């Protein structure tokens, strides 16, 4: 291969295979795992590059992050592994990208998930935020491109948004490095358990709510302490094959709070399956 090893695209590909093989030292010798989710074109890769100091190529189109990139940053003497997930609009797993992002947030059980949003078109981005919040409460919303929003005279009231979502919101302008120190501080607080967000649930119509809570209760009886029973119930109602499979195989047991978090076997399989 030789000549093109330095090529940006190849570098990404190699990182990916390394992520799958090197489960021992290096990248995994970290204290916490942080997932970076978000719609395409929100500056996700810029946030990633700025935090990790890596120079992954950024681009203004979907599919730019073909491989799952991983990097490390340090804050308050703790080492955080940052996993850049493919940019997606939703987590309903309708495409390979969405499947990868969702499986990582669900089964990879990151200690914190950062959802990067485009502050200029926040409403469009909230759809993904709400879906992530149904899976995990350990979330920081990064309202990126805040400088551009200001220029377009769009004012974001971060405190109100925090209240509405129930998770911390950090306005950032990643291209200029603004707000990223606040972001890392919030990530740290969530990882060490200093901050325990209480996300606001999504409300459905009464009929749907009844079905969801009944199914969720059944799931919780089978798996006491299940982290996101409500979300799983919704997915089962919707006929999500991947989740049905997880119920059948007993994989859901992994999601019970208090089960060894260091079991990252799933992550390895995920990467292998993808490449």
């Amino acid at each position, binding site marked *: *291969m*030789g*000549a*093109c090893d*330095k*090529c*940006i*695209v*190849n570098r990404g590909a190699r990182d990916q295979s390394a992520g799958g093989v090197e489960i021992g030292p290096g990248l995994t010798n970290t204290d916490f795992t942080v997932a970076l989710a978000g*719609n*395409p*074109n929100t500056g996700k890769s810029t946030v990633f590059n700025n935090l990790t100091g890596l120079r992954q190529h950024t*681009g*203004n*189109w*979907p*599919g730019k992050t*073909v491989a799952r990139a991983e990097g490390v940053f340090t804050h308050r003497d703790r080492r955080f592994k940052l996993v850049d997930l493919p940019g997606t*609009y939703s987590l*309903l797993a309708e*495409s*390979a990208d969405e499947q990868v992002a969702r499986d990582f947030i669900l089964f990879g059980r990151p200690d914190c998930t950062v959802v990067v949003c485009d502050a200029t*078109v*926040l*409403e*469009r981005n*909230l*759809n993904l935020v*709400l879906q992530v919040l149904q899976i995990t409460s350990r979330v920081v919303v990064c309202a990126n491109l805040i400088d551009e929003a200001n220029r*377009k*005279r*769009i*004012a*974001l*009231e971060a405190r*109100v*948004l925090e209240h*509405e*979502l129930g998770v911390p919101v950090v306005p950032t302008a990643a*291209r200029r490095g603004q707000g990223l120190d606040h972001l890392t501080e919030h990530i740290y607080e969530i990882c060490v358990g200093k901050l325990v967000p209480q996300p606001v649930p*999504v409300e*459905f*119509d009464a*009929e*749907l709510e009844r*079905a969801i809570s*009944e*199914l969720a209760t*059944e799931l919780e009886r*089978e798996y006491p302490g299940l982290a996101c029973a409500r979300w799983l*119930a*919704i997915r*089962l*109602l*919707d*006929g999500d094959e991947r989740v*049905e499979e997880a*119920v*059948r195989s*007993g994989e859901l047991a992994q999601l019970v709070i208090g089960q060894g978090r260091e079991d990252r076997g799933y992550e390895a399989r995920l990467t292998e399956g993808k490449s």
Partner: protein
Amino acid sequence: MSRSDEILRRAGELREQVGPGLHERISGALYQQSAAVSHASVRITGKARVDWDLIADKLLTSRWLGYPIMVFGLVAVLWVTIAGANVPSGWLFDGLFWVHDKLEAGFKAAGAPWWLTGFLINGVYRGLAWVVAVMLPPMAIFFPIFTLLEDVGYLPRVAFNLDRVFRWAGAHGKQSLTMAMGFGCNAAGVIACRIIESPRERLLAILTNNFMLCNGRWPTIIMLATIFVAGSFSPVWSSLAATGAVVGVTLIGVVLTFVVCRVLSRTALKGEASHFYLELPPFRRPDVLRVVYRSLIDRTIFVLGRACVVAAPAGGLIWLLGNIHVGDASLMAHLADALRPVGWMMGLDGIILVGFLIAIPANEIVVPTIIMGYLAGSQMTELDVSNTGELFHAHGWTLMTAVCVMLFSLLHYPCSTTTWTIYRETGSVKWTLWANLMPLGIAIVVCIAVANIWRMVG
């Protein structure tokens, strides 16, 4: 019945109970809540201004203006590249070949044997100087401009415009993004094909990425267009004429991509194009300084480095071929003689084919190899674009030769790095062979056709 089966059964029952449109009700609730949250926390402080994004989108993706704007953009980028690269290329030539003469004189004065001077100075150094002088200026202009277009957000609009054509070709609309990557480097373009989910469409995109001129071939096409096409126009129009020729070659590659995809979609890779969503992202003001810096460091210097790594030994090899004699002629002459009949049929000659063979590791060195092949054994050392033309004319080149070389360069086969990447991405020897033999077959047929028609008409 196990507990998990019971849960699944209950889920099925409840699904029946909650009624129809479940999926829509779930996403509806999500959208409603998104709207409510956004309404509470976002305020529009300014007056509603003119929505420039919307206007720009309407123009760039309009039915009538979309294509002309794309072609005009291509012409503009290439024209700036060609017109802007001429002068610095000349300076580099003068400077590097001045050093060449000094080095040669120095070696002679120091009493170095003729073969050492020949191998190092007339071989390795000359090859390097050529590649740097020809490639550096156009790349230093082309890459930053292209990266700017990327960063502004124009590429997804191109994908949007071309979607209908891809549908016609039975290929995936996202292929236009992989093609754009191919303009930089085919190996990168092939890897980018991972964004296409369907294996069939992905293979189509991989097999045809070769038809996108990569940075190794831009300089070849630009140089030949400058010498042979621009040469027949007045100075005022010459760079525009050269641009026209380069755009023409580029468009042939694009059109051929669609045709080949369509043929493959109906034969070896049967199937329909699949649907996909593509958001037109908001236009972004790019960080110009950073883009220029990054594309100079990450792409220009890297690509140039790769070219030099290949050019240095290739220069030495060519010098050896030209100076090791077997019987009454050099190795180069023997090789060129053997290839001459095939070359003639395709409107080329033996040396040109030797050039393409030696340049398999990197297309960048095709023209330098040809020139050094012609010069092997001769005393002529000083070269710039104008007497390169004289050299070519002296070896029987006509406009037809130049056109055939440009077409062969566009079509022939991917470089060895790209071939290796194709093998890695497809995991199949068969498709890797296909990716090489199919373009080679097309290149031979096209060149033979062009040469014969040209000779009949002319």
